[in-house]
């Protein structure tokens, strides 16, 4: 029995189809371990050999890895949610209700929301770890800067997503948040110095051309804001974040590897 099982296994592993996908086979020798890392587009994010300090959880806390994984989870669940969700004032709320009550395995929205919260926390912890180990010091300075931008993008992703359920929690959190844009000096209608910008009696900055209007696409949080936040949430910010993540990971390798003294 055992030998027949081994035969079957052998015939699968040695088939042309299998070999065309997995070139290296089981990485049970050092040479194969090197080839496994080099030959796989995902794995070759990593170098073939890592310093032991970069592998130990007690130093890295895997916080950056968890953050990236949560980003992938959020991309996947977000994509699924997009099949049911329509970003209009009319449908947004009922579609969310639908996602909860009618759609099979209706925990996608939960995974998405809790995943977003978890990602915010994990990205903070990642930053905290990088600071406490002094891993922003030369030659890693610029990667810290990219990391700060990614932190801001994470918060913006979460913030834009907060509006989409179109419930009381959403609209008022975004009203309060976006109103701060109208306090931008010189660019927001309530900002300091804005009232000084005028030609004769005509104010240059009004409620239809200030910073908040550009953000919301309207004078208040309405249909325009919902659509804008939806597009930013689903396409705009994720694309920028994905690009910067690629740069971030690349620089981790180029600037001295994962964690540990340089």
């Amino acid at each position, binding site marked *: 029995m055992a030998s027949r099982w081994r035969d079957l296994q052998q015939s699968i592993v040695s088939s042309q189809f299998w070999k065309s996908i997995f070139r290296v086979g089981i990485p049970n020798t050092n040479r194969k371990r090197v080839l496994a890392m080099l030959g796989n587009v995902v794995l070759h994010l990593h170098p*073939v050999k890592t310093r032991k300090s970069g592998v130990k959880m007690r130093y890295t806390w895997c916080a950056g890895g968890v953050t990236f994984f949560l980003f992938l989870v959020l991309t996947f669940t977000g994509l699924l949610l997009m099949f049911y969700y329509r970003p209009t004032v009319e449908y947004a709320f009922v579609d969310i209700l639908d996602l909860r009550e009618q759609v099979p395995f209706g925990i996608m929205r939960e995974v998405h929301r809790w995943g977003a919260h978890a990602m915010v926390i994990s990205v903070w912890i990642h930053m905290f770890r990088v600071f406490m*180990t002094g891993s922003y010091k*030369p030659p890693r300075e610029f990667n810290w800067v990219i990391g700060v931008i990614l932190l801001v993008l994470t918060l913006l992703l979460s913030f834009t997503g907060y509006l989409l359920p179109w419930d009381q929690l959403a609209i008022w959190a975004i009203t*309060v948040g976006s109103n701060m844009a109208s306090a931008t000096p010189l660019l927001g209608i309530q900002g300091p110095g804005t009232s000084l910008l005028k030609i004769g009696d005509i104010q240059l900055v009004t409620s239809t051309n200030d910073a908040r209007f550009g953000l919301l696409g309207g004078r208040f949080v309405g249909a325009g804001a919902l659509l804008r936040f939806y597009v930013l949430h689903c396409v705009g910010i994720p694309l920028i974040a994905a690009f910067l993540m690629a740069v971030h990971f690349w620089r981790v390798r180029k600037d001295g590897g994962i964690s540990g003294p340089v």
Partner: protein
Amino acid sequence: MALIEFVKNAIDFLSAPQYLVTGALIGLVLAIHWRPIWTPKGGAVLFALLAGGIGLSYLDPNFNKVATLPDNVPIVGMIFLVGFFFWFSMTQAYANDRRIAEGRPPFEGEDSAQKVFSWPDLVYVELICLVIVMAVMIVWSIYLKAPLEEPANPTDSPNPAKAPWYFLGLQEMLVYFDPWLAGVAFPSIIIVGLMAIPYIDTNPKGNGYFTFRERRWEITIFLTGFLVLWCMLIVLGTFLRGPNWNFFGPYEFWDVNKLVPLNNINLSEIIWIKVLKRSLPNFWLIREMFGLAVVGFYVAALPLVFSKTLLRRFYEKMDPVRYFIGVSLALMMLALPIKMYLRWIFNLKYIVAIPEFAFNI
């Protein structure tokens, strides 16, 4: 029973912002120098206190009501996670400091001398992490429904209306500063300041390993900002700010009708009316000259004064550009607690109040 009530009332009283911030600032500075905490035994005691305190608090109906709101559950998680990692990083920092004092390299230095194959050592660590995270996410999602309130109604503001929880630190700043500062200027300064850290901090030590002794100042400033002025204000905004943005102790009922007298006055009113016994001048520049002088001194002159006195050591060690940017950023960070104390002690609303141009500080 009476004892429990007494303890609850004491905690309610002591968790008012003025005591909470004071306690946290002093407590942080004392704690990071108090070695017994940063050992496994100390960590176990701290964890028992924190978990026991929060666990017992769930028995209180008022605490329970707020802490079990679905969107507030992650913040309870954040308290434990940030607390744990704070303890964990400081423990490793002290362990490394001991090694360095003995003339040995830090743990990380020893480990980084060896290299291992990424397959399987690194790849499997990652895989295990991902499986655990996914399992936690699924269980969490099954047991806790995502919140969904009434459909959006633009004419009916809920009370209190809160920003998403990660911005509650900023919303807490709104109590003390105008939106252009708390919502625009300070967030921008936080972002730029974070980005500037590697270029200001020229200390070559502590690069890539946990240490406290070699980076005392950097770590103290960062922890003050991150733990007290960011994470703790989020906890404050989530659990202790109720209807009308009034303060409520953790065991206090969120009474919509709680009346808190808010009779804050501006610096110009204090000086012109109370001290000089005159009416407010009409022209804004004269009316606000004291406030403008104070702010100007704080922003422009103080870094210069410090460079000759208090922070002379830093001025001589860093080059002037790094020194002035670094000190200005630190002063901006300290502006928040300073304004908080001015509010609590003098009921000060604005240092500079020029509503003519919506310019209030």
